[in-house]
């Protein structure tokens, strides 16, 4: 267990170092990307450009620039934004992280429960009308872009039908911290959760159904039948357990990516100032310190989520434990 932990940490550090170098090179060393001219604005005179370059340390050799940035980010924690001078980057990320985590964690609860429910029900009623309807609904869920769905949800709940009994509880867009008012936190996030989860419910439900149907062809299912077990027990105890492997793999990838800023569209539509929004704004301004910080944060979560996936594998399938 300890060696696994050490290995995982080393792996994470390696991935994060690689990503930081890559991101740095993309923004600083790609031909034609001159951060100084971006910062100085259009039509800046060469003198101003030189001053900016010196000011931001952009005239120093690349390795030094990289080392300095890492030092500010990880050691002194005082990395400042290029765009809003004096704005510390790390507090910004720390402020945005709970918003994204609340959004993604909540949505994950919905999509795990929803997709397992749909997948199992569809597999149990295989080839029936129920199965077809569920799979069609899943396809519709996958096909609806989240920004469109979010806007429709907002239109209905914030504007058109807000004054009816059905949606009068919906608070205005924005975010309320859980520590401030848990109930309001829940109410604000409920619709974003469902909006974000719908795509994944459809996707995961379909994947799980396919895996369950495949597992039901296995020899051990025949054994379970020969043992005189009920169909529901066979499905839930024998088929589902082995089918969850693909599900968990997908979950790890998607969850890591979403926490790392992939929920941008949902955040923008629902006015949530999360990490996705922060990254997006930073990218538009080419605010490299902020980009660097959010990317580091994201890579941490991707690796972290994958470690969790591996642990889950070992619990699901004892054959993995030896390896």
């Amino acid at each position, binding site marked *: 267990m300890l060696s696994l932990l050490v290995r995982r940490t080393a792996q994470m550090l390696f991935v994060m170092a690689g990503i930081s170098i890559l991101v740095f090179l993309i923004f600083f060393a790609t031909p034609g990307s001159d951060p100084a001219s971006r910062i100085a604005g259009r039509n800046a005179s060469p003198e101003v450009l030189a001053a900016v370059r010196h000011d931001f340390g952009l005239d120093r050799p690349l390795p030094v620039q990289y080392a300095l940035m890492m030092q500010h980010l990880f050691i002194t924690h005082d990395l400042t934004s290029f765009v809003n001078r004096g704005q510390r980057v790390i507090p910004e990320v720390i402020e945005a992280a709970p918003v994204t985590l609340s959004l993604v964690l909540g949505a994950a609860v919905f999509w795990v429960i929803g997709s397992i429910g749909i997948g199992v029900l569809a597999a149990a009623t295989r080839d029936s009308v129920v199965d077809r309807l569920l799979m069609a609904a899943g396809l519709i869920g996958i096909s609806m872009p989240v920004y469109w769905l979010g806007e429709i949800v907002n239109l209905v709940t914030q504007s058109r039908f807000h004054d009816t009994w059905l949606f009068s509880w919906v608070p205005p867009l924005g975010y309320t911290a859980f520590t401030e008012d848990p109930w309001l936190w829940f109410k604000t996030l409920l619709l974003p959760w469902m909006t974000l989860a719908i795509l994944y419910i459809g996707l995961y439900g379909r994947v799980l159904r396919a895996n369950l149907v495949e597992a039901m062809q*296995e*020899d*051990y299912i*025949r*054994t*379970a*039948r*020969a*043992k*005189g*077990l*009920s*169909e529901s*027990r066979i499905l839930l*105890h*024998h088929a589902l*357990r*082995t089918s969850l492997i693909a599900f968990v793999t997908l979950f790890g990838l998607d969850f890591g990516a979403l926490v790392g800023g992939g929920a941008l569209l949902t955040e923008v539509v629902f006015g949530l100032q999360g990490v996705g929004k922060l990254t997006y704004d930073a990218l538009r301004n080419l605010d490299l310190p902020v980009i660097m910080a959010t990317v580091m944060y994201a890579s941490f979560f991707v690796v972290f989520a994958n470690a969790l996936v591996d642990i889950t594998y070992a619990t*699901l*399938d*004892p*054959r993995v434990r030896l390896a």
Partner: protein
Amino acid sequence: MEGALLDVRDLRVSFRTERGLLRAVDTISFRVDTHEIVGVVGESGSGKTVSLMSVMGLITDPNAVIEGSILYKGRELVGLSQRQLRSVRGSEIAMIFQDPMTALTPVYTIGWQIEEQIRAHLDLSRTQARRRAIELLGEVGIADPASAVDRFPHELSGGMRQRAFIAMALSCKPSLLIADEPTTALDVTVQAQILELLGKLRRDFGSSIIIVTHDLGVVAEIADRVMVMYAGRIVERVSKRDIFTRPWHPYTWGLHDSIPPLQGKKPHRLPSIPGSPPSLTSLPPGCAFSPRCRYRFDRCAERPALEGEEGHAAACHLSLEERARLYASRRREAP
């Protein structure tokens, strides 16, 4: 017909396919008495497994049509709902399969899977079921059953896995055990041990056993009676002694010849049955074996009935005297 544990009459299993009705099992009848071990022999696709799966009601293909009658202890099994069959499966009739690696759920321990079966049929607490599981593992000859009970299937050797599987099948003391090629996936020394174990089970538990195999050696080892199947039909029903000394059906002779002789001159090549098993969708109209039979004659265009004396019957138009003569001369003629 008193005392039959299992009485199968005119069983037909067909599958609706795109190319028409495929008759996997064509009107077979047989019975199994208490304490009896019956071997079912035939090549792949001869309907051995399908006919026994239908006894258990395990054919879940919606395109399967099962007709005829399967009486178990006088109770009709054909037409029972899955729910009704559940009380029979596992507790009255148990089944063991060819490959215990794939037939055991890989993610649960042996003990868990045995307990599951016990608790599905008997009203026992978890601790009692576990104690029973350990007992059973001991009975099937697993060393240190108390630790084996917590092992996963992949942590046991093939022979141990099959033993554990047998322990599971026996957990509710079934009256009938159906063993579908239980030794095929095992190496030869382990095969002998497993067969010995099955023989011991009959003595200790009083179970009847139907053993499906394509290996006449297995039959010689354990069975009392044998049914030889070909293309979904029973072609010969014979006692163990007679199958080796005076088999009646040319197909059985062919099976017989494919075993290397232990005594006498070593044959240059083992004789084989020419041709290959027919496709079940395009069976010849008469005797299904006739296209491959060296002794075919005009009457073979008609389907032969299973006829003979008590305990020995064959579906062949050759007369008894001809059979005896042909069987005796067959060795010399063989290429």
